[in-house]
């Protein structure tokens, strides 16, 4: 059941099957969709996809980290990280599917 990996190629194939563009244009559009999300997240911070989830940027302050191998202290500078919050719809879908599989 688990263990498989879906990549851009499968997404492009699904778009090809669903919409009827050529395979290469389908692949190109998958890239465009992902790129638009990246650009938007980098510029304005939040991308909200209904019934899927929200991508948001969180600012992390600087802190002191430690190299786990040497124990040496290393400063971690302030940085931005992307967080994904799955929508309740998506969480429910995943758990409902797991319930059915049992």
């Amino acid at each position, binding site marked *: *059941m*688990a*263990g*498989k*990996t*879906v*990549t*851009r190629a*499968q*997404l492009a194939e*699904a*778009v090809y099957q*669903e*919409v009827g*563009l050529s395979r290469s244009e*389908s692949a190109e*559009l*998958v890239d*465009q*969709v*992902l790129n*638009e*999300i*990246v650009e*938007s*997240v*980098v510029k*304005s911070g*939040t*991308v*909200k*996809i*209904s019934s*899927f*989830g929200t*991508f948001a*940027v969180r600012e992390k302050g600087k802190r002191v980290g430690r190299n786990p191998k040497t124990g040496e202290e290393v400063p971690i500078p302030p*940085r*931005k*990280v*992307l*967080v*994904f919050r*799955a929508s309740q719809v*998506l*969480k429910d*879908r*995943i*758990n409902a*599917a*797991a319930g059915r599989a049992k």
Partner: protein
Amino acid sequence: MTKSDLVKRLAAANPHLFQRDIERIVSTIFEQIAAALERQDRVELRGFGAFSVRTREARVGRNPRTGREVAVPAKLAPYFKTGKELRERLNGA
């Protein structure tokens, strides 16, 4: 940005396509990712990130209003790990 903003931006970049086709493309992509996660498959999109499903153990929670203990069952939670390229772009690399 919302899904409809995303559709509008893509429509502007692809004047040869109908907006309803763009809507189907965007919906198909997110539907495929959701369906993969339902199967507990991983979705790996280079330069963007990877979606996976993680297990949350059952635990004893507490109703914050009444303070009463409640059993929270084990559940699955979707998880997203930002890809290296995107992580670097966020920090101006």
